[in-house]
Protein backbone atom coordinates (compact mmCIF):
# COMPACT_ATOMS: atom_id res chain seq x y z
CA UNK A 1 0.00 0.00 0.00
CA UNK A 2 1.31 3.50 -0.86
CA UNK A 3 1.93 5.80 2.05
CA UNK A 4 -0.91 8.01 3.19
CA UNK A 5 -1.71 10.46 5.98
CA UNK A 6 -4.44 9.48 8.47
CA UNK A 7 -6.80 11.96 10.13
CA UNK A 8 -9.45 11.29 12.75
CA UNK A 9 -11.47 14.50 13.07
CA UNK A 10 -14.02 14.94 15.87
CA UNK A 11 -16.29 17.28 13.88
CA UNK A 12 -17.64 17.60 10.34
CA UNK A 13 -15.89 20.97 9.98
CA UNK A 14 -12.53 19.42 10.84
CA UNK A 15 -13.24 16.56 8.43
CA UNK A 16 -14.05 19.01 5.61
CA UNK A 17 -10.87 20.98 6.38
CA UNK A 18 -8.76 17.82 6.22
CA UNK A 19 -10.43 16.74 2.96
CA UNK A 20 -9.85 20.18 1.45
CA UNK A 21 -6.20 20.30 2.50
CA UNK A 22 -5.11 16.97 0.97
CA UNK A 23 -4.14 16.71 -2.74
CA UNK A 24 -6.23 13.63 -3.12
CA UNK A 25 -7.95 13.04 0.19
CA UNK A 26 -10.60 10.38 0.67
CA UNK A 27 -13.21 9.74 3.33
CA UNK A 28 -12.61 6.53 5.29
CA UNK A 29 -15.45 4.81 7.13
CA UNK A 30 -15.31 1.03 7.59
CA UNK A 31 -12.58 0.72 4.97
CA UNK A 32 -13.73 -2.70 3.79
CA UNK A 33 -13.62 -1.61 0.16
CA UNK A 34 -11.26 1.37 0.29
CA UNK A 35 -8.41 -0.35 2.15
CA UNK A 36 -8.65 -3.40 -0.11
CA UNK A 37 -8.54 -1.10 -3.15
CA UNK A 38 -5.50 0.73 -1.76
CA UNK A 39 -3.71 -2.56 -1.14
CA UNK A 40 -4.18 -3.45 -4.81
CA UNK A 41 -2.73 -0.05 -5.75
CA UNK A 42 -6.01 0.84 -7.46
CA UNK A 43 -6.32 3.87 -5.16
CA UNK A 44 -3.60 5.98 -3.60
CA UNK A 45 -5.24 8.72 -1.54
CA UNK A 46 -2.81 11.29 -0.10
CA UNK A 47 -4.96 11.52 3.02
CA UNK A 48 -7.57 9.36 4.71
CA UNK A 49 -10.19 11.20 6.74
CA UNK A 50 -11.79 8.76 9.17
CA UNK A 51 -15.32 9.97 9.96
CA UNK A 52 -16.14 7.33 12.56
CA UNK A 53 -15.22 9.47 15.58
CA UNK A 54 -17.57 12.32 14.60
CA UNK A 55 -20.49 12.68 17.00
CA UNK A 56 -23.82 11.43 15.69
CA UNK A 57 -22.33 9.59 12.72
CA UNK A 58 -23.65 6.22 13.78
CA UNK A 59 -26.80 4.80 15.26
CA UNK A 60 -30.45 4.38 14.29
CA UNK A 61 -33.46 6.48 15.30
CA UNK A 62 -37.10 6.13 14.30
CA UNK A 63 -39.72 8.87 14.32
CA UNK A 64 -43.10 9.14 12.55
CA UNK A 65 -42.42 5.92 10.69
CA UNK A 66 -39.14 7.22 9.29
CA UNK A 67 -35.83 5.52 10.04
CA UNK A 68 -32.72 7.65 10.21
CA UNK A 69 -29.46 5.71 10.06
CA UNK A 70 -26.08 7.37 10.68
CA UNK A 71 -23.64 7.00 7.79
CA UNK A 72 -21.00 5.21 9.88
CA UNK A 73 -23.45 2.63 11.23
CA UNK A 74 -22.00 -0.80 10.48
CA UNK A 75 -23.81 -3.54 8.58
CA UNK A 76 -23.82 -5.64 11.78
CA UNK A 77 -25.46 -2.80 13.71
CA UNK A 78 -28.15 -2.32 11.04
CA UNK A 79 -28.74 -6.09 10.86
CA UNK A 80 -29.33 -6.43 14.60
CA UNK A 81 -30.97 -3.08 15.40
CA UNK A 82 -34.40 -3.52 17.02
CA UNK A 83 -35.95 -0.48 15.26
CA UNK A 84 -34.72 -1.65 11.86
CA UNK A 85 -36.03 -5.16 12.56
CA UNK A 86 -39.43 -3.81 13.60
CA UNK A 87 -39.95 -1.11 10.97
CA UNK A 88 -38.00 -2.34 7.95
CA UNK A 89 -37.01 -5.95 8.50
CA UNK A 90 -35.97 -6.32 4.85
CA UNK A 91 -33.20 -3.76 5.36
CA UNK A 92 -31.89 -5.64 8.41
CA UNK A 93 -31.97 -8.88 6.48
CA UNK A 94 -30.08 -7.25 3.59
CA UNK A 95 -27.42 -5.84 5.94
CA UNK A 96 -26.99 -9.27 7.54
CA UNK A 97 -26.22 -10.77 4.13
CA UNK A 98 -23.39 -8.42 3.12
CA UNK A 99 -19.92 -9.99 3.02
CA UNK A 100 -19.22 -12.05 6.12
CA UNK A 101 -19.44 -11.43 9.89
CA UNK A 102 -16.01 -9.78 10.25
CA UNK A 103 -16.67 -7.52 7.25
CA UNK A 104 -20.09 -6.60 8.66
CA UNK A 105 -18.45 -5.50 11.92
CA UNK A 106 -16.59 -2.75 10.04
CA UNK A 107 -18.31 -1.95 6.73
CA UNK A 108 -20.79 0.94 6.89
CA UNK A 109 -24.03 1.90 5.16
CA UNK A 110 -22.66 5.32 4.17
CA UNK A 111 -19.51 3.79 2.72
CA UNK A 112 -21.45 1.27 0.66
CA UNK A 113 -23.75 3.94 -0.75
CA UNK A 114 -20.95 6.41 -1.51
CA UNK A 115 -18.98 3.68 -3.31
CA UNK A 116 -22.01 2.60 -5.41
CA UNK A 117 -20.49 -0.70 -6.48
CA UNK A 118 -22.73 -2.09 -9.25
CA UNK A 119 -23.15 -5.34 -7.29
CA UNK A 120 -23.55 -3.84 -3.80
CA UNK A 121 -26.75 -4.54 -1.85
CA UNK A 122 -27.54 -1.23 -0.14
CA UNK A 123 -28.04 0.86 -3.32
CA UNK A 124 -30.97 -1.40 -4.29
CA UNK A 125 -32.59 -0.87 -0.90
CA UNK A 126 -32.11 2.90 -1.09
CA UNK A 127 -33.75 3.13 -4.53
CA UNK A 128 -36.63 0.79 -3.74
CA UNK A 129 -37.39 2.38 -0.38
CA UNK A 130 -37.22 5.93 -1.78
CA UNK A 131 -34.53 6.87 0.75
CA UNK A 132 -32.99 10.31 1.14
CA UNK A 133 -29.21 10.62 1.40
CA UNK A 134 -28.27 13.39 3.85
CA UNK A 135 -24.85 15.03 3.46
CA UNK A 136 -22.99 17.79 5.25
CA UNK A 137 -24.56 20.32 2.86
CA UNK A 138 -27.83 18.97 1.42
CA UNK A 139 -30.35 16.17 1.02
CA UNK A 140 -30.38 14.03 -2.13
CA UNK A 141 -33.19 11.67 -3.18
CA UNK A 142 -31.93 8.15 -3.91
CA UNK A 143 -33.46 8.45 -7.42
CA UNK A 144 -31.01 11.30 -8.16
CA UNK A 145 -28.10 9.92 -6.15
CA UNK A 146 -26.98 6.78 -8.00
CA UNK A 147 -25.55 7.81 -11.38
CA UNK A 148 -23.79 4.76 -12.84
CA UNK A 149 -20.88 2.47 -11.98
CA UNK A 150 -19.13 3.79 -8.85
CA UNK A 151 -20.64 7.20 -9.61
CA UNK A 152 -22.94 9.24 -7.39
CA UNK A 153 -24.30 12.77 -7.08
CA UNK A 154 -21.80 13.50 -4.30
CA UNK A 155 -19.55 16.49 -4.93
CA UNK A 156 -15.86 16.26 -4.24
CA UNK A 157 -15.29 16.22 -0.48
CA UNK A 158 -19.02 16.02 0.31
CA UNK A 159 -19.67 13.71 3.25
CA UNK A 160 -22.74 11.53 3.73
CA UNK A 161 -23.90 11.97 7.35
CA UNK A 162 -27.09 9.91 7.44
CA UNK A 163 -29.76 8.10 5.43
CA UNK A 164 -33.48 8.72 5.91
CA UNK A 165 -35.84 5.89 5.00
CA UNK A 166 -39.64 5.97 5.03
CA UNK A 167 -40.79 2.63 6.43
CA UNK A 168 -42.58 0.58 3.74
CA UNK A 169 -45.86 -1.30 4.16
CA UNK A 170 -44.08 -4.41 2.84
CA UNK A 171 -40.58 -5.06 1.59
CA UNK A 172 -38.09 -7.83 0.95
CA UNK A 173 -34.73 -8.38 -0.69
CA UNK A 174 -33.80 -11.51 -2.63
CA UNK A 175 -30.19 -11.97 -3.64
CA UNK A 176 -28.51 -14.56 -5.81
CA UNK A 177 -24.93 -14.62 -4.54
CA UNK A 178 -21.90 -14.75 -6.74
CA UNK A 179 -20.54 -17.69 -4.75
CA UNK A 180 -16.91 -16.57 -4.47
CA UNK A 181 -17.33 -12.89 -3.67
CA UNK A 182 -20.77 -13.04 -2.03
CA UNK A 183 -21.66 -9.86 -3.94
CA UNK A 184 -25.00 -9.97 -5.72
CA UNK A 185 -24.93 -11.67 -9.10
CA UNK A 186 -28.47 -10.32 -9.13
CA UNK A 187 -30.31 -8.77 -6.18
CA UNK A 188 -33.88 -7.48 -6.28
CA UNK A 189 -35.38 -5.27 -3.58
CA UNK A 190 -39.17 -4.89 -3.68
CA UNK A 191 -41.08 -2.37 -1.56
CA UNK A 192 -44.77 -1.54 -1.25
CA UNK A 193 -44.67 2.16 -0.43
CA UNK A 194 -46.92 5.25 -0.35
CA UNK A 195 -45.53 5.96 -3.84
CA UNK A 196 -46.71 2.54 -5.11
CA UNK A 197 -44.58 -0.54 -5.67
CA UNK A 198 -40.89 0.17 -6.14
CA UNK A 199 -38.47 -2.44 -7.45
CA UNK A 200 -34.70 -1.94 -7.64
CA UNK A 201 -32.18 -4.30 -9.20
CA UNK A 202 -28.49 -4.55 -8.33
CA UNK A 203 -25.71 -6.68 -9.81
CA UNK A 204 -27.27 -6.78 -13.26
CA UNK A 205 -27.31 -3.35 -14.91
CA UNK A 206 -24.52 -2.15 -17.18
CA UNK A 207 -24.90 1.25 -15.51
CA UNK A 208 -25.27 -0.10 -11.99
CA UNK A 209 -28.36 -0.20 -9.82
CA UNK A 210 -31.70 0.65 -11.51
CA UNK A 211 -35.45 0.64 -10.95
CA UNK A 212 -37.46 -1.82 -12.99
CA UNK A 213 -40.47 0.02 -14.45
CA UNK A 214 -42.35 -3.05 -15.76
CA UNK A 215 -42.10 -4.91 -12.45
CA UNK A 216 -43.16 -1.78 -10.58
CA UNK A 217 -46.24 -1.34 -12.80
CA UNK A 218 -47.23 -4.99 -12.40
CA UNK A 219 -46.75 -5.01 -8.62
CA UNK A 220 -48.48 -1.65 -8.12
CA UNK A 221 -51.57 -3.17 -9.77
CA UNK A 222 -51.29 -6.52 -7.98
CA UNK A 223 -48.72 -7.25 -5.26
CA UNK A 224 -48.31 -10.95 -5.93
CA UNK A 225 -45.81 -13.51 -7.13
CA UNK A 226 -47.97 -14.32 -10.13
CA UNK A 227 -48.06 -10.65 -11.16
CA UNK A 228 -44.24 -10.54 -10.97
CA UNK A 229 -44.01 -13.80 -12.91
CA UNK A 230 -46.01 -12.39 -15.86
CA UNK A 231 -43.53 -9.58 -16.50
CA UNK A 232 -41.21 -10.20 -19.46
CA UNK A 233 -37.72 -9.15 -18.38
CA UNK A 234 -35.58 -7.74 -21.17
CA UNK A 235 -31.83 -8.42 -21.27
CA UNK A 236 -31.18 -4.99 -22.85
CA UNK A 237 -28.71 -2.96 -20.82
CA UNK A 238 -27.75 -5.88 -18.59
CA UNK A 239 -24.18 -6.94 -17.86
CA UNK A 240 -22.55 -9.95 -19.47
CA UNK A 241 -19.36 -11.32 -17.91
CA UNK A 242 -17.63 -14.58 -16.97
CA UNK A 243 -20.15 -15.13 -14.18
CA UNK A 244 -23.35 -14.79 -16.17
CA UNK A 245 -24.71 -13.66 -19.53
CA UNK A 246 -27.19 -10.81 -19.81
CA UNK A 247 -29.96 -13.30 -20.63
CA UNK A 248 -29.16 -15.34 -17.52
CA UNK A 249 -29.21 -12.20 -15.39
CA UNK A 250 -32.57 -11.19 -16.95
CA UNK A 251 -34.01 -14.54 -15.96
CA UNK A 252 -32.60 -14.16 -12.45
CA UNK A 253 -34.27 -10.74 -12.09
CA UNK A 254 -37.65 -12.42 -12.62
CA UNK A 255 -36.84 -15.25 -10.22
CA UNK A 256 -35.49 -12.92 -7.52
CA UNK A 257 -38.47 -10.55 -7.89
CA UNK A 258 -40.87 -13.46 -7.34
CA UNK A 259 -38.91 -14.69 -4.33
CA UNK A 260 -38.79 -11.21 -2.83
CA UNK A 261 -42.54 -10.68 -3.21
CA UNK A 262 -43.15 -14.11 -1.66
CA UNK A 263 -40.94 -13.20 1.30
CA UNK A 264 -42.46 -9.72 1.81
Amino acid at each position, binding site marked *: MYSTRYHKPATIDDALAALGAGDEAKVLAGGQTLLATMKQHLAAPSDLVDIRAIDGMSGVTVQDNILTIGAATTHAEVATNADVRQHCGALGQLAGGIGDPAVRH*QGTIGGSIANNDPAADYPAAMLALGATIITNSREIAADAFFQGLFTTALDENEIITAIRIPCPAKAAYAKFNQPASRFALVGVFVAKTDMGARVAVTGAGEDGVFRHAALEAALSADWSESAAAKVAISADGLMSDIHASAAYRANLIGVMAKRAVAAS
Partner: protein
Amino acid sequence: MKSEKAAKRREVREDQMTNVTMTVNGKSVSRNVPDETLLSEFLREELRLTGTHVGCDTSQCGACTVHVNGKSVKSCTTLAVALDGAEVTTIEGVANGELHPMQVAFNDNHGLQCGFCTPGMIMAGIDMVNRYKASGQELTADAIRHELEGNICRCTGYHNIVKSIQDAAAKM
Protein backbone atom coordinates in the same frame (compact mmCIF):
# COMPACT_ATOMS: atom_id res chain seq x y z
CA MET B 1 13.40 -7.30 17.95
CA LYS B 2 12.16 -5.49 14.84
CA SER B 3 11.98 -7.08 11.44
CA GLU B 4 13.73 -5.57 8.43
CA LYS B 5 10.38 -4.90 6.81
CA ALA B 6 9.17 -2.89 9.79
CA ALA B 7 12.41 -0.87 9.78
CA LYS B 8 11.98 -0.13 6.09
CA ARG B 9 8.46 1.10 6.62
CA ARG B 10 9.79 3.53 9.23
CA GLU B 11 11.65 5.44 6.48
CA VAL B 12 8.55 7.45 5.60
CA ARG B 13 7.90 11.09 6.35
CA GLU B 14 7.30 12.03 9.97
CA ASP B 15 3.89 13.57 9.20
CA GLN B 16 2.74 10.23 7.86
CA MET B 17 3.46 8.53 11.17
CA THR B 18 1.07 8.31 14.09
CA ASN B 19 1.63 7.33 17.66
CA VAL B 20 -0.98 4.73 18.51
CA THR B 21 -1.74 3.22 21.90
CA MET B 22 -3.96 0.20 22.21
CA THR B 23 -4.49 -2.69 24.58
CA VAL B 24 -3.42 -5.98 23.04
CA ASN B 25 -4.22 -9.13 24.97
CA GLY B 26 -4.63 -7.08 28.15
CA LYS B 27 -1.35 -5.16 27.86
CA SER B 28 -1.07 -1.53 26.81
CA VAL B 29 1.24 -1.07 23.82
CA SER B 30 2.34 2.16 22.08
CA ARG B 31 4.14 2.44 18.76
CA ASN B 32 4.87 5.20 16.29
CA VAL B 33 3.97 3.65 12.94
CA PRO B 34 3.34 4.75 9.34
CA ASP B 35 -0.31 5.65 8.87
CA GLU B 36 -0.91 2.92 6.29
CA THR B 37 0.22 0.15 8.69
CA LEU B 38 -2.35 -2.62 8.73
CA LEU B 39 -3.37 -4.16 12.03
CA SER B 40 -2.04 -7.51 10.77
CA GLU B 41 1.39 -5.91 10.13
CA PHE B 42 1.28 -4.10 13.47
CA LEU B 43 0.60 -7.33 15.35
CA ARG B 44 3.05 -9.51 13.46
CA GLU B 45 5.94 -7.13 12.75
CA GLU B 46 5.80 -4.56 15.55
CA LEU B 47 4.58 -6.79 18.37
CA ARG B 48 5.91 -10.10 17.00
CA LEU B 49 2.54 -11.72 17.66
CA THR B 50 2.78 -14.06 14.70
CA GLY B 51 -0.15 -16.27 15.69
CA THR B 52 -2.35 -13.99 13.56
CA HIS B 53 -1.80 -15.35 10.04
CA VAL B 54 -1.99 -13.50 6.76
CA GLY B 55 -3.45 -15.85 4.16
CA CYS B 56 -4.92 -14.04 1.18
CA ASP B 57 -4.28 -10.46 2.34
CA THR B 58 -7.46 -9.47 0.48
CA SER B 59 -9.98 -9.92 3.30
CA GLN B 60 -11.43 -13.11 1.81
CA CYS B 61 -9.88 -15.93 3.83
CA GLY B 62 -10.20 -14.87 7.48
CA ALA B 63 -6.86 -16.33 8.68
CA CYS B 64 -6.05 -12.85 10.07
CA THR B 65 -9.26 -12.56 12.12
CA VAL B 66 -8.80 -10.92 15.53
CA HIS B 67 -11.18 -9.21 17.96
CA VAL B 68 -11.36 -5.42 18.23
CA ASN B 69 -13.45 -4.24 21.15
CA GLY B 70 -14.94 -7.73 21.37
CA LYS B 71 -15.92 -8.10 17.70
CA SER B 72 -14.25 -10.14 14.98
CA VAL B 73 -12.51 -8.13 12.27
CA LYS B 74 -10.07 -8.93 9.49
CA SER B 75 -6.79 -7.42 10.66
CA CYS B 76 -5.47 -7.27 7.07
CA THR B 77 -8.23 -4.77 6.24
CA THR B 78 -7.98 -2.56 9.32
CA LEU B 79 -5.61 0.36 9.89
CA ALA B 80 -3.61 0.12 13.11
CA VAL B 81 -3.61 3.90 13.64
CA ALA B 82 -7.42 3.93 13.63
CA LEU B 83 -7.40 1.80 16.77
CA ASP B 84 -6.06 4.28 19.32
CA GLY B 85 -7.65 3.31 22.63
CA ALA B 86 -9.05 0.01 21.29
CA GLU B 87 -8.93 -3.39 22.98
CA VAL B 88 -7.48 -6.02 20.65
CA THR B 89 -7.45 -9.74 21.32
CA THR B 90 -5.41 -12.14 19.21
CA ILE B 91 -5.07 -15.91 19.28
CA GLU B 92 -2.20 -15.45 21.79
CA GLY B 93 -4.64 -13.79 24.20
CA VAL B 94 -7.55 -16.23 24.36
CA ALA B 95 -6.01 -18.82 26.71
CA ASN B 96 -6.33 -17.79 30.31
CA GLY B 97 -3.92 -20.02 32.22
CA GLU B 98 -5.41 -22.97 30.40
CA LEU B 99 -6.59 -23.30 26.81
CA HIS B 100 -9.82 -21.56 25.83
CA PRO B 101 -12.77 -23.99 25.39
CA MET B 102 -12.68 -23.21 21.65
CA GLN B 103 -9.03 -24.28 21.47
CA VAL B 104 -9.76 -27.46 23.45
CA ALA B 105 -12.68 -28.26 21.15
CA PHE B 106 -10.57 -27.87 17.99
CA ASN B 107 -8.07 -30.28 19.57
CA ASP B 108 -10.69 -32.78 20.73
CA ASN B 109 -12.60 -32.79 17.43
CA HIS B 110 -9.60 -32.77 15.10
CA GLY B 111 -10.75 -29.36 13.82
CA LEU B 112 -7.45 -28.65 12.09
CA GLN B 113 -5.02 -30.29 9.75
CA CYS B 114 -2.24 -27.95 8.57
CA GLY B 115 -3.40 -25.34 11.10
CA PHE B 116 -2.81 -22.25 8.99
CA CYS B 117 -6.43 -21.07 9.12
CA THR B 118 -6.93 -22.17 12.73
CA PRO B 119 -6.15 -18.89 14.56
CA GLY B 120 -8.78 -17.14 12.41
CA MET B 121 -11.22 -20.02 12.82
CA ILE B 122 -10.85 -19.91 16.62
CA MET B 123 -11.31 -16.12 16.74
CA ALA B 124 -14.34 -16.31 14.41
CA GLY B 125 -15.71 -19.23 16.43
CA ILE B 126 -15.47 -17.39 19.75
CA ASP B 127 -17.07 -14.30 18.21
CA MET B 128 -20.03 -16.21 16.77
CA VAL B 129 -20.67 -18.13 20.00
CA ASN B 130 -20.58 -14.86 21.99
CA ARG B 131 -23.00 -13.16 19.58
CA TYR B 132 -25.46 -16.05 19.46
CA LYS B 133 -25.41 -16.43 23.23
CA ALA B 134 -25.94 -12.67 23.74
CA SER B 135 -28.98 -12.64 21.44
CA GLY B 136 -30.37 -15.95 22.70
CA GLN B 137 -30.28 -17.61 19.27
CA GLU B 138 -29.41 -21.26 18.80
CA LEU B 139 -26.09 -21.81 17.02
CA THR B 140 -27.01 -24.75 14.81
CA ALA B 141 -24.61 -26.54 12.46
CA ASP B 142 -26.23 -24.68 9.55
CA ALA B 143 -25.78 -21.36 11.33
CA ILE B 144 -22.10 -22.15 11.97
CA ARG B 145 -21.54 -22.94 8.29
CA HIS B 146 -23.22 -19.66 7.32
CA GLU B 147 -21.20 -17.73 9.94
CA LEU B 148 -17.95 -19.25 8.59
CA GLU B 149 -18.46 -17.73 5.14
CA GLY B 150 -15.51 -15.42 5.69
CA ASN B 151 -13.08 -18.10 6.91
CA ILE B 152 -11.54 -20.45 4.40
CA CYS B 153 -9.92 -23.82 5.22
CA ARG B 154 -8.30 -25.81 2.41
CA CYS B 155 -7.69 -29.02 4.41
CA THR B 156 -10.55 -30.15 6.57
CA GLY B 157 -13.64 -29.81 4.42
CA TYR B 158 -15.06 -27.83 7.38
CA HIS B 159 -16.89 -30.80 8.91
CA ASN B 160 -14.70 -31.07 12.01
CA ILE B 161 -14.47 -27.29 12.32
CA VAL B 162 -18.26 -27.12 12.57
CA LYS B 163 -18.20 -29.95 15.14
CA SER B 164 -15.49 -28.15 17.12
CA ILE B 165 -17.44 -24.89 17.29
CA GLN B 166 -20.63 -26.72 18.27
CA ASP B 167 -18.74 -28.56 21.00
CA ALA B 168 -17.17 -25.33 22.31
CA ALA B 169 -20.50 -23.50 22.21
CA ALA B 170 -21.90 -26.03 24.67
CA LYS B 171 -19.00 -25.37 27.04
CA MET B 172 -18.63 -21.59 26.81
